[in-house]
């Protein structure tokens, strides 16, 4: 498979996001019972900055040989479509959580939905799912076309 520079950048960003947040969520969800309180604000900021730095480094390497770095109409169209899908994923997740709060009986036995730390991590997971959807949608349209 021959990937374009843009696709390579997207794959790298997707990999970084899955790796960093996968490690973070694995540690967080397995320790929910030990630490039901939400993580510190500083921890989250460090995590987000780490991901941003890694993605910037990757973009520098990917675009090093690519003369044209500006997004053209096709890039912008694919990005718009991917934002639409990621919005739908995020909306669905939020609606699911709102229904749970209203009904308050479905998942009471799960600490992830009853402790402040669990709720925080779940909401963060929703954002990560939306971001992953954003990357995957772009990759799909770059590969398949319209």
């Amino acid at each position, binding site marked *: 498979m021959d990937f374009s520079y*843009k696709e390579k950048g997207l794959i790298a960003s997707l990999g970084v996001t899955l790796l960093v947040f996968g490690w973070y969520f694995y540690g967080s969800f397995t320790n929910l019972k030990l630490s039901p309180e939400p993580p510190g604000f500083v921890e989250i900021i460090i995590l987000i900055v780490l991901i941003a730095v890694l993605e910037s480094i990757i973009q520098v390497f990917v675009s090093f040989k690519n*003369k044209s770095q500006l997004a053209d109409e*096709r890039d912008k169209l694919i990005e718009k479509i991917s934002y639409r899908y990621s919005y739908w994923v995020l909306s669905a997740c939020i609606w699911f959580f709102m229904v749970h709060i209203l009904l308050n009986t479905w998942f009471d036995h799960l600490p992830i939905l009853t402790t402040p730390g669990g709720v925080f991590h779940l909401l963060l997971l929703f954002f990560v799912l939306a971001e992953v959807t954003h990357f995957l949608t772009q990759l799909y349209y770059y590969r398949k*076309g*319209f």
Partner: protein
Amino acid sequence: MSQQTLAEKVGVTRQTIIAIEKDKYSPSLEVAFRICNEFSVPLEAAFNYK
């Protein structure tokens, strides 16, 4: 004319030119007219609708 040269003259990336050639992307009217102007051919000669 290379794909890169055409892309630079038309104002898109080389990957977009490749996608147009492979029928994976339909360009905007502006880009379609620019491509035709580069080759001095009418629109119908370069693009068709299936």
